């Protein structure tokens, strides 16, 4: 860890008066903060603004939402914990880190949840609402005492803060103010620019009466003043300005705005967590670009509307999550068969079935590639960062059109709700979809005029003279004439598949992170890139010979993998999906269920790829991956 642990361990203290001059400065390259409250108390808003201001001031930032499963779970219970983790750094931050170094908790029960999730570093500073300790209700006082007993194991440094008492000096309802008070405290501790925060608060409440923003600002200033007067420390995470204009947004916002930049104009969707926030945002802005969000009657219809729209015009897209993907399967197969361009975004959550609606998992890889009956070749891509969420929408549309195919974009709940700054994209004309070409086709031109080498063909669009044909999900020939004979079906399958081989030839081989030879290669995909690379850095600091490789294309896969794998004694994947522990009862080499990418890589390369996967419902931590690397080193970690 790069963080210094200067603070004294496990000490309950009433915040004492402290003047700025006497404050201890904790100077670190990075720090991880959590803000947790009961659902509905606004810890998320507090955390988001803290992340935003940190990004604007030039710190690296990665945020992760802490989301309860229900909208309004019972207050003062561990499952009610709602909030945000914000990891800030001097340099770019690529993942949510290991444990938190500072937590602001609105009650001891939500804190307990974080403690039980192993989310807090030993010695973590905890700013906790003190009202529960001396509450009139005897049960609450007892709950406090029991929680403190349990929390003692963490050797945390507690600072009791009379949040409610303070907030009541400014507002009548402290439930609607503590978050801004806490934001003020954090602003003081981390020396955040109050003017930027005020601007962000005014923007946040721009649709409400001006008094709302002003009373929030009063609370912010109160918290700031209180921390200044009562806390004896400050945290300094030096800023190295990135030097290029940056934007900061979450992955769902990046997908939505990326769709606009890609020239997409129709999104058909059905509400599903965690994809909906992208549709919410798109619904807000899309019409000003001439675009439409159609909320269909179900997931199936959403795919159907997108297929119909793509058939008749510019490529349309749909956005969903695992259960929705399952329902769209039939239409995906139809789009493959009719060679209708289509972009689908799957914001993966935990599965199978309804699974973990708000939590991250990378469990849809194999079902995305193989989820249809028959052979349904399609493109599957996975962005690894917020920036790639933005950029991949343009890539997806262009591939869908050039190859007349389905392109699936697999993001996940970690990318969807996490916030990270990235260089501001230069939106160009070339990204935008060209107007439809409705000029007449040559007489007799066939709707599947497959080039025998590439399988590519020119799409016919309604409105084009001489282009009339009936697209069909039945086996068909070049003229879209239904045919069940062996030659027709085999040729159709071959031509649709060939396009994938052609696309694969246009991709560049991926570059390993670290040396091109070594003892161990860790292969990942999607949102785990930052955590894997941080773990690799730390392992290399320990002297281990390890590199990593991150894949963006999963179908077809980027070229050269077998050759790259040949440079290492051992290859393993790290994924957020289920695999059997090889030492579990009954599990053998023959029946072991493996990580989804591992399964693919083994089949594709015949290399004995091992895997370390977990399904905790939260992003992987670099510390966990580091331990896995040590455990998987071919000659042991001491090699």
């Amino acid at each position: 860890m790069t963080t210094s642990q200067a603070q004294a361990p496990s000490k309950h203290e009433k915040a004492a008066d402290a003047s700025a001059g006497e404050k201890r400065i904790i100077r670190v390259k990075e720090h991880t903060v959590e803000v947790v409250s009961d659902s509905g108390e606004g810890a998320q808003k507090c955390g988001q603004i803290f992340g935003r201001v940190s990004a604007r001031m030039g710190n690296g930032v990665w945020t992760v939402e802490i989301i309860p499963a229900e909208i309004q779970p019972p207050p003062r219970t561990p499952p009610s914990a709602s909030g945000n983790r914000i990891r800030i750094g001097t340099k770019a931050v690529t993942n949510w880190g290991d444990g938190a170094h500072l937590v602001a908790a609105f009650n001891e029960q939500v804190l307990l949840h974080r403690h039980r999730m192993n989310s807090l570093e030993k010695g973590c500073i905890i700013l906790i609402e003190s009202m529960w300790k001396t509450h009139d209700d005897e049960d609450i006082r007892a709950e406090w005492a029991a929680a403190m007993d349990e929390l003692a194991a963490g050797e945390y440094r507690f600072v009791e803060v009379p949040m409610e008492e303070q907030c009541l000096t400014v507002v009548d309802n402290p439930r609607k103010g503590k978050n801004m008070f806490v934001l003020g405290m954090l602003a003081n501790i981390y020396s955040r620019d109050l003017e930027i925060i005020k601007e962000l608060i005014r923007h946040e409440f721009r649709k409400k009466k001006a008094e709302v923003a002003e009373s929030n600002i009063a609370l912010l200033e109160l918290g700031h003043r209180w921390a200044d007067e009562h806390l004896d420390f400050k945290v300094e995470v030096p800023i190295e300005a990135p030097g290029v204009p940056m934007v900061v947004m979450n992955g769902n916002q990046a997908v939505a705005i990326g769709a606009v930049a890609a020239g997409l104009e129709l999104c058909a969707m059905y509400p599903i967590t965690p994809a909906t926030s992208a549709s919410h945002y798109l619904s807000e802005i899309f019409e000003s670009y001439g675009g439409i969000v159609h909320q269909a009657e179900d997931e199936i219809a959403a795919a159907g509307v997108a297929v119909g729209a793509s058939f008749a015009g510019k490529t349309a897209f749909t956005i969903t999550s695992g259960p929705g993907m399952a329902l769209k399967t039939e239409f995906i197969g139809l789009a493959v068969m009719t060679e209708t361009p289509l972009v689908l975004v799957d914001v993966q959550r935990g599965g199978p079935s309804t699974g973990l609606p708000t939590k991250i998992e990378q469990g849809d890889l194999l079902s995305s590639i193989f989820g249809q009956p028959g052979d349904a070749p399609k493109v599957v891509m996975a962005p690894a960062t917020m920036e790639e969420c933005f950029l991949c929408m343009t890539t997806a549309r262009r591939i869908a059109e050039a190859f007349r195919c389905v392109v699936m974009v697999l993001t996940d709940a970690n990318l969807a709700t996490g916030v990270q700054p990235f260089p501001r994209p230069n939106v160009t004309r070339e990204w935008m979809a060209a107007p439809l070409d409705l000029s007449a086709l040559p007489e007799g031109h066939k709707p599947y005029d497959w080039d025998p080498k590439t399988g590519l063909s020119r799409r016919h669009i309604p409105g084009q003279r001489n282009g009339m044909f009936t697209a069909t999900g039945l086996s068909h020939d070049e003229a879209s004439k239904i045919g069940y004979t062996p030659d027709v079906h085999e040729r159709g399958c071959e031509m649709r598949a060939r396009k994938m081989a052609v696309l694969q030839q246009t991709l560049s081989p991926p570059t390993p992170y670290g040396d091109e030879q070594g003892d161990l290669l860790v292969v990942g995909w999607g949102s785990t890139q930052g955590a894997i690379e941080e773990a690799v850095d730390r392992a290399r600091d320990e002297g281990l010979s390890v590199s990593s490789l991150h894949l963006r294309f999963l179908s077809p896969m980027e070229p050269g993998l077998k050759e790259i794998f040949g440079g290492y004694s051992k290859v393993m994947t790290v994924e957020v999906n289920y695999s059997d522990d090889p030492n579990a009862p009954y599990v053998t080499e023959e029946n072991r269920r493996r990580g989804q990418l591992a399964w693919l890589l083994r089949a594709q390369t015949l290399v004995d790829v091992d895997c370390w996967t977990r399904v905790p419902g939260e992003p992987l931590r670099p510390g966990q991956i580091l331990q896995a690397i040590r455990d998987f080193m071919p000659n042991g970690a001491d090699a």
Partner: protein
Amino acid sequence: MIQLGCSLLGSSVEDDRYLGMEDYQKAVARWCSGCGDHAVLTAVQRLLEVEQLAPEETVFVSGIGCSSRFPHYVNSYGFHGLHGRALPVALGVKMRRPELHVFAVMGDGDCCSIGAGHWVHTTRYNPNIVAIMLDNGVYGLTKNQTSPTSPKGLRSNTQPRGAYIDAMNPIATTLGVENASFVAQTGDWVPDHIYETIRAAYHHPGFSFVRILQRCPQYTDNLFLEAMRNPDTIELLIHPDGVQVKDLEKLYTNTVYHDPADLVNAFRLAQLDDKIRLGVFYRNDDIPVYEQVRAVPAKTVDEKIAILNEELDTYAV
């Protein structure tokens, strides 16, 4: 004269083609002889000719089933998709390209069973699409299974002791959906009535639901035998705003003067089971049309880039 309007290109092409029946014909229909689908195909092709719809500006979308082979037999663009799911595809086409003439052709299992959700909701969206439901009361292509409109007692391969529950009433069901704007019924034994009904549906601005009563010569051969033999079992709904076929009124002397604007009476007529009623049950041309409700002004690439940069400004750090 056909106006080839292409709003996307912002130009309109003058066209002096005159298209005959044969210009709308494609593959020879491979339905069984005696199947009602043939009569519907002929009526539709007659409409295309009379209205001189440009084949390249016309799209037939279908589901799966015997009736869903329809687009293959019409010289136009077609999309022969999934069982039950013609309507979402048709809606996508219409939303994206409102200037196209869009027809959806479905069977009874297609529309009323596996596609029931889409049927209800597309009725509510009210896009300007002509939806034709060819209802022969049975699954034909999969060889004789009970459909939602199979009469109670009808024997099939899945209910060999006869259909257990009463048939669905697709007319009443559609009338019950908010924003239903055109609901009509005709039969395969009265070709002129099919034509006039589909013509009225085509001219209605909104979602036109046309149920065509027909038999399956293989599995429900007797379904409307009595209707064909005994004119007394039929009642025509007639009105200037509905469908009127003068010659037919000589044969079918049971007529009722029904104003299609009268939804309450439409319900009453749809619920009566003493006679088979043919005609327009309901029509309301004033219900907002989905693709118009959702229409947004198109933006040039330059305009889009300018707005996008403003949007990115709000995320600038």
